């Protein structure tokens, strides 16, 4: 495969720890769909929100160093599954476009105008697409009702995201429908789950995540599908806290999009890290074993 078809892969720190299943399932799904990911060698933390407390160049430089690594590998597209990292990468790109010299000075080298960043959702939606995905399905979800939860950052603000609709995004809906899920209307697709307040103010996260879980339950969804490590933690890891705050029980599994797609593609459970979910979701996965692939 020529280098131009390869995509630079920036996992981000969460995917080495609390969101390790997002990392393995992203790699597995991309491999299965013919997308070659090249993990950036020696990548560093994007700075996340703590860096934004300081001068804007801190965030831009930390994220920019990773973009430089991609450039040095002759890769123009940097994909990250984490919307928080995506925000930092896009922030650096914005500074590259507005103040190229200042960024080059901070990084020691200029950053090419060709380098850009996308989410794994955007990559799957635009490079594969619902149609091709539905053709690749080996274990369809047979109408399982699920709701996609996009979170705040994947589509907002529109001028930065340049992808899907900021208020009612549908790209994840289409991908989930392509693997056989039913997607009921979910009005809280982009409501905030409490984001980084998890550590410092878990009471806020419990309330906000509880609201989202409650709406998912009312929509008749059996599971929530997310594309953000922080959203997953707030809805899954902290689901018990949310239940306590709301005085109710949800028991709603919270899958990563790549886990759902990977299962539909017939990938083995261990490649998807499904056992890592706190609220178990095994019972919802279609049990039918995929037929043996004929060409192999």
């Amino acid at each position: 495969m020529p280098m131009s078809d390869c995509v630079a892969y920036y996992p981000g720190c969460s995917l080495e720890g609390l969101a390790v299943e997002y990392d393995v399932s992203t790699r597995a799904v991309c491999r299965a769909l013919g997308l070659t990911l090249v993990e950036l060698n020696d990548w560093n933390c994007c700075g996340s929100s703590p860096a934004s407390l300081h001068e804007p160049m801190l965030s831009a430089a930390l994220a920019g160093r990773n973009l430089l690594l991609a450039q040095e590998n002759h890769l123009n597209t940097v994909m990250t599954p984490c919307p928080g990292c995506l925000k930092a990468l896009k922030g650096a790109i914005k500074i590259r476009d507005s103040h190229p010299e200042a960024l080059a000075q901070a990084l020691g080298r200029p950053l090419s105008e060709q380098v850009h960043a996308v989410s794994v959702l955007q990559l799957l939606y635009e490079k594969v697409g619902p149609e091709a995905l539905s053709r690749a399905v080996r274990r369809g979800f047979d109408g399982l009702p699920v709701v996609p939860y996009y979170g705040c950052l994947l589509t907002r603000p529109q001028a930065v995201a340049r992808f899907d609709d900021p208020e009612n995004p549908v790209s994840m809906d289409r991908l989930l429908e392509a693997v056989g899920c039913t997607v009921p209307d979910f009005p809280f697709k982009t409501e905030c789950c409490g984001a980084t307040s998890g550590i410092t103010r878990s009471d806020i996260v419990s309330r906000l995540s509880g609201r989202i879980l409650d709406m998912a339950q009312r929509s008749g969804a059996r599971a929530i599908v997310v594309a953000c490590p922080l959203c997953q933690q707030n809805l899954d890891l902290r689901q018990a806290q949310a239940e306590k705050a709301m005085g109710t029980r949800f028991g709603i599994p919270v899958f990563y999009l790549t886990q759902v797609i990977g299962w539909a593609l017939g990938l083995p459970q261990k490649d998807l890290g499904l056992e890592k979910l706190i609220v178990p979701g095994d019972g919802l996965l279609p049990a039918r074993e995929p037929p043996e692939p004929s060409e192999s």
Partner: protein
Amino acid sequence: MRIGVFVCRCGTNIAGTVDTQAVAAGALASPDVVYATELLYTCSEPGQQEIQNAVLTHRLQGVVVAACSPRMHELTFRRAVEKAGLNRYLLEMANIREHVSWIGQDKAANTEKALELVRMAVAKVRRNEPLFGSQVPLTKRVMVIGGGVAGIQAALDCADAGLDVVLVEREPTIGGKMAKLDKTFPTIDCSSCILGPKMVDVAQKENITLHAATEVESLSGTIGNFTVTLRKKAVYVDWDACTGCGLCMEKCPSKKNPDGFNEGLGAAPAIRIPFPQAIPKKAHIDRSACRYFSTGKCRVCQKICPVGAVRFDMEDRQVVEHVGAIIVATGYDLFDPAAYGEYGAGRYPDVITAMQFERILSASGPYGGHIRRPSDGREPRDIVFVACVGSRDKSVNRPYCSGVCCMVIAKQAILARDHLPEARCYVFYMDIRAPGKNYDEFVRRAVEEYGVQYIRGRVGKIYPKGERLVVQGADTLLGARVEVDADLVVLATGVEPSRGARELAEKLHISADTNGFFMEGHPKLKPVETNTAGIYLAGACQGPKDIPASVAQGSAAAAKVLALFARDSIATDPQTAHVMEKVCIGCGKCLSVCPFGAIQWKTLRDGTKKAQVLETVCQGCGLCNATCPPKAVQLNHFTDDQILAQLETLCA
């Protein structure tokens, strides 16, 4: 030539930042200037008198007035010099107010620039020649474009005065938006009861020719003599034969089509009369809904029509009308709330627009005047109204106030409480704009007598929860986020220019403002004129307006037309192009660039072809002048000589 220069102080408007005395003194150094002075207010009676006196005393042959924009007072000073015996085209103006004093603070630089503009005007007037317009007869017919309440009022006023009126309406019926309203604010009188008789009048006046389902295709000519080509759209029913009996509507098998008149609520047959009081009361076929047009089979309406009026083979046809003046009254459209994804209009059936609610309130509407929710037909207990949906919102490119929505909401909330005394009404608003007569009192009645709860803040999100909707907004007076559970949410969508307004403006050679509304001649003093002589505006096509203001403008535009038609002929503007035949090479470039079709071929006796300008059609835009390779086409009063002399003076 003996030239006089008059420098206006305009009170302090000019003299505040320009040394007018120095400008006058400096002007004396220009060639041919024999007299120069400054005046306090040149446009005033004594100011004009001074000019006239100076013309006589100093035997002036040309006059330069350095003052405001010629758009403001050129005509004033032309008349003044004419009274003193000069040809009006021997006057030039230097704009030292809008172009100098109002835009710069540096007095020395301003004075220098003003003097330069004066020198240029002197250079031009030295080369000006007397010009004379000719008198052409007027066509005393008027065309009104748009049959809403403003257009109807204009048409009736003109017809009452004895004029022949051609009324053109895009839809198959006149009545416009007002015909859809249930009641009107602040008097709560029935909209169709007050509009209906006017619509009937239009149908009955013998001197009104109504073209419904018709659009303007093109326009040529000038004030007094316009030629308008219209396109009458195929309605697939011969309206001369149709009696409006409505039998076809009953029998049409394709019944479940969105009913445009009811704003998509309720269904309509493919062949239909828009509403019972429609004028003309004639049926038309909605091609996209008709089974015959989609499958080639059916023809039920054709078979049952008692007078055989259905014509499936009907095509659009052109009609040409000759008129002397045009009143544009194309009204408005309403903002599509789908742009607000967070409100869910289109996704949630019980989130509706104020116009849809108007139809729900109407006894002739989809629910017979009973307030029900579109989703399940239940009576709503809690109704939330949201103001400014597509108004005062830069994020959706609608930065302006729509002016009427505050009143519409107050009216609808009052009517909702009248229909359903148990219902509770809530209004989310940013500011209440109710400056009309008895308007603010009306809003107070909604609050005080009808118990409508007004909440000061915008709505962030609307989402369904069970059978109901949650409206999540703010109460900025409390500094709180608030939630209201609602059965029905009414979005007061903003007013925007009628679809196709920009294209129509191009065809008519009138201008539109940044928001797409047509531009009036002057924001205060020429509210119904346009910058194209003979074309007038009425109603919301010029900007958001309520019914009384639209009606007033309809009458005002009619009065302008009547004043124009009070004379029998009109002087043509001599500032037109003319062709120097000896220089013309017959390349035809001017013919192809002329936007008005004012240039035609002329064959000389020796057979050579030359361009010829039709002076009555030419608008003096100068495109031909700029395009002509050998410079054979010259624009009177703006000849190459005159303009180059100005430039040379500036660069000297």
